[in-house]
């Protein structure tokens, strides 16, 4: 075959590229490019008509300049002209330019579509291919409108060439992904399924992707694909390694097609037809058998291709979760990989085994590999492999091995990478609680956690240990003794002081009989830590001191002296000062009886009420509307020593609302566990997923109501109420979702899921932890979603909630009001500045305007409130017409900041508004305009 020489065919291009490569500096490069651009511009403008070759060459140079990162603002027309050339090379450059520099200029789109149409009709397979690739690469809505009807015909026509069929299938897939509404299902669908039988394996490869995607959305219509896929797969796996010729890759028959077929089968449950099912089981067994055969080649390509099929096979076996024999065999196979010399295989085996651990059939088999996994934790060099080992240990943990696994995780924690410490802490805390037979072990474990990784122990973890100690009187004495001992360490973590302070305040009397831990010694021990602690911890310790006054009358005067000191009574912190004043007063005026009543031991926390699994669930989730007030009330009740049982958090630490306001100080959400491992927490505990319900009626209206406000009720039916509270700052946000069970019956398997489209996922990052799957009657569960706006976005995430109520399965979906305007930061500016900026943003793409009828009474004050609620600053005395409203602000995303100006002109006579948005980014103008237009 002739080698392709450097830039053959276009000498001028090769020279230009060489020149650029020889530029010594960025400046020289820019100079050379500008010279070239001027040259091309003059050629394009010149009187002499350019021949096809020159046009191709210049367009190709422009493309090269663009790919170097420079803007190109001309040449589109010449590129479009190339499309109608009859020479392949000219056409190809034209299509390439269009695909890379998509331009939504409507005039050009019409011309481009025209050229594509001609090529599709040309019956020249090369031209048809170029046209289809262009549609597949651009995939715009305009193209879908123009061609979504035509392409299925090309795909199933009897006389279409194989290579065109391949392109048509994937082109259709692209259009279906971008504009599913424009791709009509029809007669062609059944014929597409039969492409699985096609003789040309390339056609089958392309068609399988299309069918898989279509089957995910329309499982019924594509059901027949199952038996066809099984028989195709069967023919591949039983073929001799030479049968498939071109499609055999390093002695593995059609590995990619096999993987695709196995993924298609994962859209469906195990086949019902016993014959099909039997044939499939045979295939899966054959693949597992082949894994045991000696390799046909020593090349890594051989083993990778073979194992790609094997791992997909195991995924299907896990997906079906119905053949114990296959599950155990899969597990044994993965067990071999755990000790393989290839890091890739060890990693993938750990990952795959995690899912096997959750199947009842293979859980025991997975457990036999515990020593290997622990060893991986200690010896793997790649942190991502160690991470998978942690995940797997967590997944394989049960009562029989919990002590060992927790101990190993604790010892790993001492040296673990910072990036995964918080997650390990949570996992240890969950496992220790879940599998504690003996609560002294649990207490020891949590105290160890605090000792080893105190900074990574979140509030929920130490609240929980206190709740458990309070609820179990058999462990209280032990807990008091243990924290007392732990506090002896000269430097102990503040979280330990918190736990110690709380537990000794409640149960210090249980160890006071021992002269080594007499009341006075306990007090001095705690007080020795006091000055090094933060305000919330000191507040907690003050509460402990007043409890000591009640428990141990003999230390009363010592404590009163402390409370009376200037550093307490005149403390600059209001909270500390108030506590000191009130506690001192209480200790002076109250009789012993009153003191005993006020400072009575905490009543037990209702069981099942909390678990770290439902990390952020609070004892009494604040009411959706008045959460802030209620939390404050709880807090002051506790400060005043009110007898009302207050949650551990309320007496001593920043209340949930204070935490909410402290958003800016909180570490950014993505610092948490990476998404895949976050998912694991749920994978283990949730039921298998069901289809997502369509949006609940009224969801859109409710959604619109939240555009200009952050708190309120998002959804309510007879069973469930969903309330929201959210806070946004710059490109970060946090949303508290409150699920209220309105009935008197438990909700079971309660599973809220956030669903983002692929596009949205790239631009908006959401992180959340699972909630407790059981919601008691009348109870409220809280879920926190950490939000990061990566780039501007249009769609909204969907919140799907599934649960069992009585015997019935409930499934609700609502749109979650996380909208682009939430990331607004208001900007004040004077009239002059405003109009200067307004003029700067005068490109047609930067402005979006909407004229619409008022849907609500046109009230000036309400309008102002809405604009402020929308997030922009409301600028007074800027618009010469006082009836108009103008606003300004900056949208913060992780990647960039986008300045936004808006102007709303009401027309009272006509009951109309005109809304104009100008921002530096078209999509932002568009989206903000849509959102705000709905509000008036």
């Amino acid at each position, binding site marked *: 075959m002739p*080698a392709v020489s450097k830039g053959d065919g276009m000498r001028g291009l090769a020279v230009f590229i060489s020149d650029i490569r020889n530029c010594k500096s960025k400046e020289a490069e820019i100079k050379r490019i500008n010279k070239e651009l001027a040259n091309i511009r003059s050629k394009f403008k010149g009187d002499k008509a350019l021949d096809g070759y020159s046009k191709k060459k210049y367009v190709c140079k422009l493309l090269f300049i663009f790919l170097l990162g420079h803007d190109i603002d001309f040449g589109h027309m010449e590129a479009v002209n190339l499309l109608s050339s009859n020479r392949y090379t000219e056409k190809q450059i034209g299509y390439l330019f269009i695909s890379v520099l998509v331009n939504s200029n409507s005039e050009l789109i019409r011309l481009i579509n025209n050229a594509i149409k001609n090529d599709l009709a040309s019956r020249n397979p090369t031209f048809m291919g170029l046209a289809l690739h262009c549609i597949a690469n651009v995939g715009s809505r305009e193209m879908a409108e123009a061609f979504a009807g035509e392409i299925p015909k090309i795909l199933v026509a009897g006389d279409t060439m194989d290579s065109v069929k391949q392109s048509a299938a994937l082109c259709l897939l692209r259009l279906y992904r971008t504009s599913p509404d424009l791709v009509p299902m029809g007669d062609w669908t059944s014929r597409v399924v039969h492409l699985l039988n096609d003789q040309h394996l390339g056609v089958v490869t392309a068609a399988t992707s299309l069918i898989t995607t279509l089957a995910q959305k329309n499982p019924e219509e594509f059901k027949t694909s199952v038996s066809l896929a099984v028989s195709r797969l069967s023919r591949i796996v039983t073929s001799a390694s030479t049968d498939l010729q071109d499609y055999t890759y390093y002695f593995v028959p059609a590995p990619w097609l096999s993987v695709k077929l196995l993924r298609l089968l994962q859209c469906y449950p195990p086949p019902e037809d016993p014959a099909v099912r039997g044939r499939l089981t045979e295939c899966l067994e054959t693949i597992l058998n082949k894994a045991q055969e000696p390799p046909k080649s020593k090349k890594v390509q051989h083993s990778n291709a073979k194992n790609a099929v094997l791992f997909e096979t195991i995924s299907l076996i896990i997906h079906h979760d119905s053949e114990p024999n296959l599950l155990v065999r899969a597990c044994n196979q993965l067990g071999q990989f755990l000790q393989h010399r290839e890091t890739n295989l060890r990693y993938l085996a750990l990952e795959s085994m995690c899912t096997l651990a959750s199947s009842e059939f293979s859980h025991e088999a997975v457990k036999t590999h515990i020593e290997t996994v622990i060893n991986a934790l200690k010896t793997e060099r790649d942190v991502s492999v160690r991470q998978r080992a942690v995940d797997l240990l967590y997944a394989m943990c049960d009562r029989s091995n919990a002590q060992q696994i927790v101990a190993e995780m604790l010892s790993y924690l001492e040296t673990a990478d910072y990036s995964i410490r918080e997650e390990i802490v949570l996992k240890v805390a969950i496992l220790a609680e879940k599998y504690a037979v003996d609560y002294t072990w649990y207490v020891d474990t949590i105290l160890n956690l605090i000792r080893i990784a105190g900074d990574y122990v979140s509030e929920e973890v130490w609240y929980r240990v206190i709740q458990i100690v309070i609820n179990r009187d058999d462990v209280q004495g032990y807990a008091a003794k243990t924290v007392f001992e732990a506090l002896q360490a000269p430097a102990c973590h503040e979280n330990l002081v918190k736990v110690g302070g709380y537990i000794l305040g409640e149960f210090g009397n249980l160890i006071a009989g021992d002269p080594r831990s007499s009341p006075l010694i306990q007090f001095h021990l705690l007080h020795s830590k006091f000055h090094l602690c933060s305000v919330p911890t000191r507040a907690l310790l003050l509460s402990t001191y007043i409890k000591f006054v009640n428990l141990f009358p003999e230390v009363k005067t010592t404590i009163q002296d402390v409370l009376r000191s200037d550093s307490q009574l005149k403390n600059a912190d209001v909270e500390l000062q108030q506590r000191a004043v009130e506690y001192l007063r209480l200790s002076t005026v109250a009789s012993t009886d009153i003191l005993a009543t006020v400072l009575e031991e905490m009543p037990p926390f209702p069981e099942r009420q909390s678990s770290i699994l439902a990390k952020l669930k609070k004892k009494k989730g604040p009411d959706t509307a008045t959460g802030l007030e209620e939390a404050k009330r709880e807090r002051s009740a506790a400060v005043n020593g009110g007898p009302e049982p207050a949650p551990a958090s309320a007496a001593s630490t920043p209340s949930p609302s204070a935490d909410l306001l402290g958003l800016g100080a909180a570490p950014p959400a993505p610092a948490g566990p990476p998404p895949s491992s976050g998912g694991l927490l749920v994978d283990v505990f949730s039921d298998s997923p069901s289809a997502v319900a369509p949006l609940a009626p009224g969801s859109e209206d409710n959604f619109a109501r939240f555009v200009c406000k952050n708190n309120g009720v998002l959804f309510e039916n007879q069973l469930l109420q969903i309330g929201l509270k959210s806070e946004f700052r710059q490109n970060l946000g946090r949303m508290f979702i409150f699920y209220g069970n309105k009935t008197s019956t438990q909700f079971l398997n309660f599973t809220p899921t956030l669903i983002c489209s692929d596009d949205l996922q790239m631009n908006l990052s959401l992180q959340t932890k699972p909630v407790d799957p059981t919601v008691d009657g009348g109870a409220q569960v809280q879920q926190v979603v950490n939000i990061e706006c990566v780039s501007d976005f249009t769609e909204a995430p969907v919140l799907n909630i599934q649960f069992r109520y009585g015997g019935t399965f409930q499934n609700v979906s609502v749109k979650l009001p996380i909208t682009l305007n939430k990331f607004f930061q208001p900007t004040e500016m004077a009239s002059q500045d405003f109009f200067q900026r307004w003029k700067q943003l005068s490109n047609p793409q930067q402005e979006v305007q909407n004229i619409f009828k008022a849907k609500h009474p046109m009230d000036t004050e309400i309008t102002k409130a809405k604009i402020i609620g929308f997030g922009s600053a409301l600028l007074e005395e800027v618009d010469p017409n006082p009836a108009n409203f103008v606003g300004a602000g900056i949208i913060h995303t992780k990647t960039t900041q986008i300045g936004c100006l808006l102007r709303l002109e009401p027309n009272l006579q006509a009951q109309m508004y005109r809304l104009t948005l100008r921002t530096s980014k078209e999509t932002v103008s568009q989206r903000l305009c849509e959102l705000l237009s709905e509000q008036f």
Partner: protein
Amino acid sequence: MGQGKCCKAGEGLEIRFILIQNRAGKTRLAKWYMQFDDDEKQKLIEEVHAVVTVRDAKHTNFVEFRNFKIIYRRYAGLYFCICVDVNDNNLAYLEAIHNFVEVLNEYFHNVCELDLVFNFYKVYTVVDEMFLAGEIRETSQTKVLKQLLMLQSLE
């Protein structure tokens, strides 16, 4: 199941983008299967370069990336990277990279970085023959090379 992961898992095999970069971070091919604006593309390119180049031969060929993962392989000074969904088949893409490299090698007769620079417009053609709409289109090296030769003859 998707909860916590925050987003519903994959839609079958779908490539988000393919990047070829050299060690210095120069892009030799960028093929996007999702819509990104130019700034975002530049940012992705830099991030990928940062996560991939710090890894050594003892590391896996997979690395978590935002809500996705990158499957990559290094050939001399060039990194070939494919961004896919987290639950996609790692090894299938790893070998898809190799299959692609073997085709380039055959087509350009011992491909080197400069071939990709001077023939950038042909590399796109090779990509489109093997990957389309984010999916694997053709895996047979014989078929791909035959088609490329046929197109070559039209020049």
